[in-house]
């Protein structure tokens, strides 16, 4: 995302620059190519090429520890499709996604509406809702681990004082995933929030004024104007969030290590375990390919679904 914006900006200023110096001599299309070349080179070298090489690895017993490599046909693919632990980790990823996407989209919308309607505390709300987003994942994970700590943590402390029995949070198979979702929402909702807020503030004020003159109340204005005009933003946010949630790894790896008893081991961690702890890069590559295809299917399906609605 950020790379794309960046490139287009470079391209834009580049075109303006060449326009100032010599408008007629060079065709604009070729100039553009030169500007994207650095990015393109990196893209080909570090994304496209490894992806192709990785596909080749899936047919070999290549190990991260080197050694002779031999062609083993579809063995890795067979193992991938029959690995029970892989399905369990895919399930965990799905659970995380299903829990986190609605929370992260609706919460962002709610917070943005709140900020948009706040007269005085706008700056404070913007700061509070977005601030956690800039924290590095390790800091966030450590903070929440302490707050969740069953014997010394903040949450059980408060619950205890209120006379409730505490929870085991990250340490119980039943609550670990939900705990991670809560922490993730706090940490990452700021980005979606910002997109929503920007979209809301770009809705022309005169539309609201006209509606108000026609007698629309505050709730009607939100329901009939704000939400419909935010549809495209919602599509974007939901797709980005879906992909982001499916790729979840860092915070879970840091907070639970995939436990307790693998209740939070997501597919990315399982691929990591197979490749970097188990050293089997060939197998890990075929798992990664399976997962990549699933992500593409999910994104395309979602995109189709939304664009049909819009039409």
């Amino acid at each position, binding site marked *: 995302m950020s790379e794309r914006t960046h490139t287009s900006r470079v391209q834009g*200023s580049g075109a*303006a*620059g060449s326009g*100032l110096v010599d408008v007629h001599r060079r065709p604009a299309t070729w100039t553009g190519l030169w500007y994207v070349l650095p990015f393109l080179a990196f893209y080909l070298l570090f994304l496209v090429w490894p992806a192709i090489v990785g596909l080749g690895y899936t047919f070999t*017993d290549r*190990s*991260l*520890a*080197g*050694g002779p490599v031999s062609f083993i046909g579809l*063995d890795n693919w067979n*193992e991938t499709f029959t*690995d*029970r*632990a892989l399905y369990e980790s895919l399930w965990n990823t799905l659970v995380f996604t299903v829990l986190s996407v609605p929370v992260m989209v609706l919460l962002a919308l709610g917070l943005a509406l709140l900020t948009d309607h706040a007269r005085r505390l706008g700056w404070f709300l913007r700061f509070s809702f977005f601030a956690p987003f800039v924290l590095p994942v390790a800091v966030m994970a450590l903070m929440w681990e302490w707050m969740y*700590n*069953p*014997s010394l943590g903040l949450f059980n402390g408060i619950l205890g004082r209120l006379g409730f029995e505490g929870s*085991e949070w990250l*340490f*119980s*198979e039943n609550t670990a995933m939900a705990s991670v979702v809560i922490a993730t929402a706090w940490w990452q909702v700021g980005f979606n929030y910002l997109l929503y807020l920007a979209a809301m503030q770009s809705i022309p004020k005169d539309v609201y004024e006209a509606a108000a003159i026609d007698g629309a109340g505050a709730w009607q204005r939100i329901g009939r104007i704000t939400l419909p005009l935010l549809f495209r933003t919602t599509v974007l946010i939901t797709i980005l969030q879906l992909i982001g949630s499916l790729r979840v790894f860092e915070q879970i790896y840091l907070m639970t290590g995939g*436990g*307790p*008893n*693998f209740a939070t081991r997501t597919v990315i961690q399982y691929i990591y*375990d197979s490749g*970097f*702890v*188990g*050293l*089997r890069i060939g*197998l890990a590559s075929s798992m990664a390919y399976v997962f990549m295809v699933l992500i593409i299917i999910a994104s395309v399906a979602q995109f189709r679904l939304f664009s049909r609605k819009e039409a």
Partner: protein
Amino acid sequence: MRDASNRPSLSPPPPAHGVERRALLTAVLTTAAVTAAGCGTYDPLASDRTRLRQWNLFGGGDGLRMLQMHEAYQAEHTDVDFRATTFEWGAPFYTKVAMGAAGGRGADIATVHVSRLESLAPGRLLDPIDPSALAEAGIDETMFLPNIWKECFFEGRLYAIPLDTHLLVQFYNLDVCREVGLLDSRDRLIPLDGKDTYVDALREIKAATGGFGLSLDTWGPWSNFWALYRQQDGELVFGEDDFEMDDDKALAAMEFLYRLSEEGLSPRVSQGADTSANLANGRSGLMIHGNWEMTTLDATDVSFSVTQFPNVFGNHRTRGDSHCYVFPHQRDRDPERTRAALDYAAWMLRHSLSWSEGAGHVPAYLPVAESQEYDQLHPQSEYREAAENVQFEPEAWFSGSAGRLQDEATGPLTALHQGTRTPEEALRQLKRTFHAMTNAPAPV
């Protein structure tokens, strides 16, 4: 307005400006070079010094001690340009060692767990050590316990030089145990041999503390399980595509761990740090943990002592491992640097009293372990005999500290403590994982 602000940045900078910038750049680079040289790496005699690079995984209290030992080593060996690099403990470290060696550009010498030897493909990722060259550095097999020395071999060749043995021991809170009457006249824990005696004692402690009897790491339970399984002579042998395990003995060990948490004698959930905290703040009277936790407890004001792993099934066998020196594979191994590496290892062994003092590890080098100075180290010498009771990990490429087996076994065993799996269920899950791992082709 916009044009005015844009134009200067788009047009080429005026020449004068450029010269200034170039001068600045030169100045910066020169400063950087001078600063880098000032960091102690630059030496007019650098070319005459032997370059020695060491990799290790000690980030905790023992890391600090190793740093001090390295400073002393460097001070005594001005002819060696020695540099040590510490990586994050566990899988990240082993991945780096394996990949560095796979490219033939590993460090000159590295510390690894002896239990990970097989996972590092001795012969390909590790270069063998010549026993006669080691003897020239003053080290030979008579200076180690046979059970540890044996672990350093793979297919008949020597690949490791053991620095220490580190193992699970039993810590006890002196105040709590005195109150319950579990100390003798010299403040030592009285023998609590056998499962029933031991559990009775835990009940008494629990009654006194109102918390737990025994604090243990339920988040890294494989070691506890392995010690208890080995106390019953349980064997775990991994073959080509199958494995042998004694179900009854495994169940007995699991049953014991399960009961501890079920009865509230031990916590349901306890990570490494919580485990020591529970002993230090008197919430439990006994603790099973690695000897390295001594540095953590030393930092608190609890009065404690240490003894062997509890005798539950008729003996004090415990799970242990050994930090050892290995030579990661180098395509062009330089004899001079290899000799320097051997000398360095020998120096560290001869000075391992300091290692033991700072990290609680039992020196592998017998001249130190049997010395009078070590005898006077308290509480380290209290569990010196435990080194003979050490049970190393089963042999397999996925076995060993921070290895795949430990990772996978952690799941069902933590669930035992949490009460979400019965011993039978946990054993089924464990065996299913073992099956999967033995069936997988070995990547090393």
